[in-house]
Structures are given as C-alpha cells and as structure tokens.
C-alpha cells in the first residue's frame, strides 16, 4: 500500500513535470523575455518575517543613508503604512489579518523587474537591467522628469524633491556593489529569521514551489513576482491573500514594454504614410485650384470673344446704317438738284413765250 502510494506520488510528479515542460514550450513560442538564466533574486517569505526591522537598518547602513527619524528599534512605526522614501530604500509594514492573531509583515523594496517599467519609461536610459538581475540607476544622466515613477507599478522609486541642484531618483540597488564583490545584499545578510533567501531566480522559484508543496496549509499557492508584470527578480511567498498585504493582484502578466510597444510601432507608420497622404491632399488641392483657374481663364476668354463679336457686329451695322443714310442723303440731294434744274428750265421756257399770253 505504502509503495503504491509512493508510486502514485511519483506519477503525479512525472505528470507535473510533463505539464511544466508543456508550459515552457508554450511560453518559448511567445517572445516573452524569461529573464537572464543566471539572473539572481531574493525570495521574501512573509510567513517567516517577524517585523524586526533589521533589514531596514542594514539597508540604511550599507547605502550610507541619513539617520532615520525614529530609531530602528522603535517598533511603533510598524503601525503606520509606510513606503520607500529617499531615506529608506526598504520598509517593513505590518498588516493585521483577520483570521490570525499575529499581524503579517511584509518587506517592500524594488522588485527588480525582469522587464522594468522604469527602464522602459526613461528617455535617457538612466535605468538598466543587468544580467545579474539588478536594476540600476545612473544619476549622471537623469533629467528628473520622474516618468519612471509614474511608470513603476510597485510605486518604488523616490525623488529628492528638496535638492535644488542635483536631485536624484533613489531606490534599492539590489546592493549591486556588494553583489559584485561576492557579498550578500545588506538586508538578506542581516535577516535573523531567514525570511530572505538570496540565489538564482530559477532556484528560488523551485525552492518556493517546494515550500508550498511541503506546507500547503501554510502558503497560498502563488509565488508573487513569478509572472506579475512579466516577472520580477524578487519574489514573495505568503500565507494570506497578497492583496491583504498591500500587494496588487491586478497587475497582469504583461511586461511594461509590451504596453507601449503598440503605440511606438505606429510611429514609423505615421512618419511614412502621413506625408504621402498630406502631399496627395495638397496636390489635389493645387490641381483643383488649377482647373478652377483654367476654367475661369477660358470663361473670361470666351466672354471677351463674345463681347468682341458683339461689338464688331454693332459697329458693322452702324457703319452700314451710316452708309445707307449717306446714300439716301446723296440720292436725295441729286434728286433735289435735278428738280431744281427742271424747275429753272421750265420757268425760263415760260418767260420766253410772252406773246402767247398778251
């Protein structure tokens, strides 16, 4: 019985492995970036976290941050919901959760996204995702537009608003300088409860799965950051719903660059097609105007011609009339002359016949 049960488990395991290969195969046909295979990460297990703030203190030390307003030993700060600031790259908040008598603690810091929104948004490429997993910032080029802060879905980057000359964006660096030297990130090193585990992201996912599988009653069956916004290098495990720990569950799996790639791909289309279309419109307008102008011109010509003929006709008529008048006048004059001659002749004749009258 025991044997068969073990086998049964093995079969399940084999089936599970089969399923996961299918998943990978499917995923690889999509062009989703799965992260650098050697990329590092940190797993934060909130079921182990006791809210001691040791990580906050270590982070403050290794990053040479200013002294906190209230000492790291002061646990009363946990009562307020806090976020990352220019003075604290990581904070631990306490979340009262209904069914449990103990509050749950969660550490907040940059999640070092596999395809970071901040890096995609920056117009001077001040952010870079390194092969080791860290998302690092170069203050020497940052213009201070703060679009990275608008873009970050985890509301992590902070800004030195009170610095008039060289304000910088500040956030967790994944302790990149320490990692390069082979050291652990400050926060991970200082954690007394091993709530933070540092390692290759792929191994951490395996580890997290194992923990969930070993204690299904203790964990929610989800690794936060495995797929959120395309995946993050820092991962989270919890025993209560993530949204009860202030972690958004509605972020989706689309990485940030994919959200804007559509709009960006339209740019060459607009640049290529719009001028052609507009020039075409202009050409048509010009042609229309030219045709209109030509029509007007020929109309004018026609009108001029018509007027001309009309005028010519009139002139001719007038001339004819004048000539006719002249002719009749001449004829009349001729007639009058003849008549006058005739009359004269007749009166002369009469004068020469006096005898007849006496």
């Amino acid at each position, binding site marked *: 019985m025991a044997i068969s049960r073990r086998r049964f488990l093995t079969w399940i395991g084999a089936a599970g492995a089969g399923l996961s290969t299918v998943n990978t195969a499917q995923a690889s046909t999509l062009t989703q970036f799965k992260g650098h295979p050697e990329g590092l990460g940190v797993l934060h297990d909130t079921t182990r976290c006791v809210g001691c703030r040791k990580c906050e203190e270590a982070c403050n030390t290794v990053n040479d941050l200013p002294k906190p307003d209230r000492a790291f030993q002061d646990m009363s700060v946990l009562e307020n919901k806090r976020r990352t600031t220019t003075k604290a790259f990581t904070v631990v908040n306490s979340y009262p959760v209904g069914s449990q008598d103990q509050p749950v603690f969660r550490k907040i810091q940059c999640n070092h996204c596999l395809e970071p929104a901040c890096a995609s948004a*920056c117009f001077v490429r001040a952010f870079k995702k390194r092969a080791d997993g860290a998302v690092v910032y170069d203050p020497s080029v940052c213009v*201070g537009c703060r679009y990275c802060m608008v873009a970050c879905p985890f509301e992590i980057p902070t800004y030195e608003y009170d610095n008039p000359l060289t304000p910088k964006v500040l956030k967790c660096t994944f302790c990149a300088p320490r990692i390069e030297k082979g050291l652990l990130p400050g926060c991970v090193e200082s954690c007394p409860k091993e709530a933070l585990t540092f390692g290759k992201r792929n191994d951490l996912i395996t580890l997290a799965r194992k923990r969930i599988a070993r204690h299904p009653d203790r964990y929610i069956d989800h690794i936060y950051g495995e797929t959120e916004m395309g995946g993050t290098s820092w991962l989270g495990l919890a025993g209560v719903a993530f949204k009860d720990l202030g972690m958004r569950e509605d972020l989706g799996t689309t990485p*940030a660059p994919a959200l804007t790639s559509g709009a960006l791909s339209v740019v060459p289309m607009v640049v290529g097609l719009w001028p052609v279309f*507009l020039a075409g419109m202009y050409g*048509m307008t010009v042609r229309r105007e030219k045709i209109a102008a030509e029509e007007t011109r020929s109309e004018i010509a026609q009108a001029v011609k018509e007027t001309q003929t009309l005028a010519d006709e009139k002139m001719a008529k007038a001339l004819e009339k004048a000539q006719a008048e002249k002719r009749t006048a001449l004829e009349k004059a001729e007639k009058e002359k003849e008549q006058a001659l005739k009359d004269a002749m007749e009166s002369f004749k009469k004068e020469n016949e006096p005898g007849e009258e006496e």
Partner: protein
Amino acid sequence: MSGEQKAESRTLLTPFNLIAGIILIAGLIVTVIRFTKGLSSVTNLSDYNPWGIWIGFDLMVGVALAAGGYVTSAAVYLFGMKKFHSAVRPAILTGFLGYFFVVVALNYDLGQPWRLPYPFIVGWGTTSLLFEVGLCVALYLTVLFLEFSPAALEWLGYSKTRKLAGRLTIVLTIFGVVLSTLHQSSLGALFLIAPSKLHPLWYSPYLPVYFFVSSIVAGLSMVILEGTLSHKFFHHSMDKTYLGEHDPLTLGFGRAAALVLAGYFTIKMVGLAAGNHWDLLTTPYGLWYLVEVIGFVLIPCLLYTVGVRDRNLTLIRFTSVLAVAGIILNRLNVSVIAFNWHLPFSERYVPSFQEVVITVFMVTLIILSFRFIVTRMPIFHEHPDYKDSH
C-alpha cells in the same frame, strides 16, 4: 502715429495690466524659490504623485490647446480652405507661443532642466514615449518658429529672407502635421505604461487616438475662441480681409468641430464597450466620467451642429468655450484627477498655491507676448508690401 502712442499710454493703466503686473511679480518670486530651494519648497509633489499641474495643465493642456496652429495651416494650405487664409497667422502665433511656454514651464518641473537636451545627446531612450514627445515637441517648435517667421521678417523688413521662408510653407505645414500627430497622440500614450494607476474608465489602449482626435477639436475650438476674444481686444489691428473672413471661418470651423466631436464621442464609446467597464459608470468616478463625455463632448457636438445649422455665430462661439473646457477637463482627468485613483485621499495630490501661481504666470506670459506681437507685427492684417505673397 501720435494716435497710436496715445492708445498705448491709455492701455498702460487698465485693471488688466494691474492684475497682470501682480501675477508677474508673484510668478517671479515663486520662480526664484523654485530654483534656489528645490521642487519641494513650492510644490505638493510626492513620491506617489510625481506629476502635478505643471505637467497636467502646463504640458498636457498647453500642447492640446496649441493645436490650432497645425489644424489651421493644414486646413488652409493642404485641404484647400484658402478662404480662411487670414486665420493662419494668428493660429500659428498662438501655437508658437503655446509651445514655447510649454517648454518654459517644463523647465520648472524637471529636476535638472539644464539636462533637457540629454535624451538626444547622451541616451537615446527610444523605448520611452516621453522620448518621442520630447523629440517631436522640439522639432515642432522649430517648425512653428519658421512658419511664424514671415510675419517677423516682414515687420523687420527683410524681404529676401521673407521670400525664402514663404517658399517653405507647404513643406513646413506637412512636417508640422506629422509631428503634431505624433506628439499629440504620444501624450496620451504616456499613460499606457500605467494601467494599474489610471482609472479604467480613462485607461484605454486607444488613449493615443483619443488624444490625437481631441487635439483637432481643441485646435478648431481654440481658433474660434481666440478669434472671438481677439475681435474684442485687437479690433483696431485687423484689416478688411481678416474681418471679412472671420464669420465664415467661425461657421466653417464650427462645422468641422461638430464632425470631429461626433467621431471622438463614437470612439470613446467604442473604447468603453471594449473595456467593458459599464459597471463602473455608477461609481463616483463613473459619474465624473459621464460629466466629461456627455457634458463636454456630446453636448458641445450637438450645440455646434445646431449653431452651424441655424448660422448662429453666438452659439458657436459659446460652444467653443465649452469644447475647450472639455479638453482641459480630459487632460486633467487623465494626468491628475483619475490618476492614482486607487490611493487613499491622504496620499493624493492637490496642487499647492505656488504651483497654481506658476501656471497662471505662464498663461499671463502667453497673453502678454501675444498682445505685444499682434499690436506690432502683421498678424491680423496683411503687410502692404506682401499682399499677394501667400
């Protein structure tokens, strides 16, 4: 000449100038504080709210309302509405001033404004929509400057250069439309990267299309509105051509605005249906959304239509105010009011008094520059020597 001088000295003591003077002084004081003490000394910006009204109003609204330049020059030079020719210069001038002061205001908001050219020098962040906005605005400002230059050159009496600038008109117009299409839409696309922060009723994959189409509405309505206002205040600088073309222009642009608004309303509804967020319409944000889409899109669309049908110029002019208010509302909704809607009120952004001062300061500077220019350069009238050169 003496009459002109008298008019000037008369205008110097108006209440308008008094208020403008106070605003200028207040603006200069805040400017000094901003650049010596940093952003936190004058703004309510925070780590949750990196963008306030200097982006939401000065940039987003400023660019949208300056769309009159490309809309008018495209209508007149490319789409053959030559009869509205006299509207081009005032529209180009307001466009140029609008963009110029957008860039000035941006320098207040940037943490290190002297690095403004960095995106084009040190790091080509081509994955960023802000990069596209920056590049297009920079280029378009140059185009507007060139488009405006004939007026300045005529005023200065450089007739040869003037001729050269005149020949570029068509190329510049096409270039201007392409650049405007790109950056007007990209301003909307800026928010595509933050679906988790912008309220779903405003977040849409169509954001760039919305911004572009509504910029045409903004451009048309602003030309009508500016025409009305200029008519009131600069009547003496207008020539017969301008005055004669003014009413037909109001009608023509009113008709165009009605059409574009109808299209805009339709695609807004398409986006709403595609997002399938009908259930959100009954929430407070939903009601606010309806105020915007019905009160400031659908109603102006209907009023424009009625105004054009009845040839009611007063109604068209009134509607242009409503439509412009709608654009302002939309840009503020997307960038400030419905942005970070998920945060509790204590973490939301409300502009500080000083931020408002700078915004009013910028608007005042635009008005003063506009007045300075139109009372001197041939904007509302043609220069006698260049009557037939356009």
